[in-house]
C-alpha cells in the first residue's frame, strides 16, 4: 500500500517532467505531498495517508507568454456550477468598488463582491445575473473564478416584491434598536436597492 503510494508519486513526477506544458505547480505539488506523506508514514505506517485537495484537482494551465484572446471563466454557486471553463470575451463583476470589467490578460486580482449584476459577454450575447456577495479571483493565466453564494438571472426577479422588501427593510432600519438589528436591516436595504438598480439600470 505504501509502495503503491510511493510508486504513484514517482510516476506522477515522471509524467510532470515529460509534459512540456507542465506548470511549476505540478512538481512542487508532488514534493509537497511527499513531505506530508513522509511524516504520516512515520506516525501511522499502517494507515493510508488521506488525500489532499491538490491531488483531486486538475492542475491549472501555466501563464502563457502572449495575452490570450479569450478569458476562461468558472462561475460557481454552492448548489451548482453555473459556468464551468467557458471561454468568453469579457465579464463585468460587481466588486465592492463598483463594476469591474475583466478582459483577457487582466492583472491577477482578488476582489470581494457586493450584491449587484454580473454580466458575461460572449461575442454579441450578454448574460446577466444578480449575485449576492462572494469573491472573484482573476489569475495570471487568464482564468477567472467567481464564487458567489446565490445568483439569479435577472428575468426571474419580481419587481413588486423588490419594492415591498425595500420599504420593509427601510422601516426596520428606522426602528432598529440594537446594533445587530441595525446591521441586518442595513444589509436588507443594500441588497434590495441593488436589486432595484439592477432591474431599472
Amino acid at each position: 500500500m505504501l509502495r503503491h503510494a510511493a510508486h504513484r508519486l514517482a510516476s506522477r513526477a515522471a509524467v510532470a517532467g515529460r509534459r512540456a506544458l507542465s506548470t511549476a505547480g505540478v512538481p512542487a505539488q508532488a514534493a509537497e505531498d511527499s513531505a506530508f506523506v513522509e511524516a504520516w508514514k512515520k506516525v501511522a505506517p499502517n494507515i493510508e495517508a488521506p488525500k489532499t485537495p491538490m491531488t483531486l484537482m486538475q492542475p491549472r494551465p501555466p501563464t502563457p507568454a502572449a495575452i490570450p484572446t479569450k478569458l476562461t471563466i468558472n462561475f460557481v454557486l454552492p448548489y451548482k456550477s453555473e459556468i464551468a471553463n467557458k471561454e468568453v470575451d469579457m465579464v463585468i463583476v460587481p466588486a465592492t468598488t463598483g463594476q469591474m470589467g475583466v478582459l483577457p490578460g487582466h492583472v491577477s486580482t482578488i476582489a470581494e463582491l457586493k450584491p449587484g449584476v454580473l454580466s458575461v459577454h460572449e461575442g454579441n450575447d450578454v448574460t446577466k445575473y444578480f449575485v449576492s456577495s462572494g469573491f472573484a479571483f482573476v489569475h495570471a493565466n487568464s482564468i477567472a473564478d467567481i464564487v458567489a453564494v446565490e445568483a439569479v438571472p435577472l428575468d426571474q426577479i419580481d419587481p413588486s416584491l423588490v419594492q415591498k422588501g425595500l420599504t420593509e427593510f427601510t422601516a426596520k432600519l428606522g426602528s432598529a434598536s440594537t446594533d445587530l438589528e441595525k446591521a441586518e436591516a442595513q444589509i436588507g436595504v443594500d441588497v434590495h436597492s441593488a436589486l432595484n438598480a439592477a432591474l431599472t439600470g
Partner: protein
Amino acid sequence: MAMAALRREGRRILLSTPSPAAAMAARSPAVSQPEIAPHGARSISTQVVRNRMKSVKNIQKITKAMKMVAASKLRAVQIRTENSRGLWQPFTALLGDAPSVDVNKNVIVAITSDKGLCGGINSTSVKVSKALHKLTSAFMYSGPEKESKYVILGEKGKVQLIRDSRKSIEMTVSELQKNPINYTQTAVLADDILKNVEFDALRLVFNKFHSVISFKPTMTTILSPEVMEKETESGGKVGDLDSYEIEGGETKSEILQNLTEFQFSCVLYNAALENACSELGARMSAMDSSSRNAGDMLDRLTLTYNRTRQASITTELIEIISGASALEG
C-alpha cells in the same frame, strides 16, 4: 453487531446438530422442550429452529428495506454533491494547499455521521483524525506550544473520540442531517466554529465520495489569515499570493480574513455533502451484505429444520413399528 450475534446463534444451531449417525442417540436428551403430542408420544421440537428462522427472516426484510431507503436518499444527495464539487476548486487554485504546514495551534475538524449501521467510514475518519493529532502534536512539528484540538461533527465520532481524547475535544456538534444539508446551515456552523475556536490551521477530515463502493478519507487544510500572510511572505507553498492585487480599499489582512471565512464555509459545505453521500453508500453496502448473510443463514436453518422434522418423524415411526413388532412377538 447484530449480525455477529446472529452468526453466533447460527453456529450454535449447527453445532447442536452433528452428523445424523450420532444424532439419534444424542438428540432427544440434548434438545430442550420436548413437545407433548396429543397421544402422549414424545417428538423432537422444531419450535426453537422455527423461532430462529422467523427472526432471521425479519432481519433480512429490515436490512433489505434499509438498503433501498439508503439507495433512494443517495440518489438525491449525490446530485447535490456533484454540483457542489466546483465550490472548493477556486480556493485551492488561488491559495494552494499546505498539508505539511508547521503551526502551533492545529484544530482537527472531523465530520462523522449521527446514525450507525454504515460500515467503517466513521472508524476510518476517527483513525485518520487520531493519526493527524499525533502527527501535529508530536514530532515533525514538535515544540512546547504545539497543541492539537478536535472539533467533532456527528455523534459517532464523538463517541469514539471521547473515550481516550476527552480533554482535546474543543467542541461537538450533532444532528447535522436533521434537515437536508444546505449552504446557509453550514455557513452558520462555520461561523460558530470560527468564533469559538482559536486556530492557526484547520484540518478538515471527511470521506470523499468517489463511487458507491469507494470512499477515500480526505483532508483539507485551511490556514488562518495570519499564518497565510506569514507563509506568503516567507515564500512558502501557498503560491504567489502577493502577486495578486487587492481590489478595493481594504488591506491584505482584511481581505484574507474574509477569504478564510468564506473558504471554510464553502469547503465545509462540500465536505458535509461528500460525507453524507459516503455514509449512504456505506450503509447501502453494509445492509446489502447483511441481507445476503441473513439469506445464507436462513438457508442453513431451513436445512436444519427439515432434518429435525424428518428425524422426529423417523423416530416416531421406529417407535411405533418396534412397539408393534414387540407385540407380535
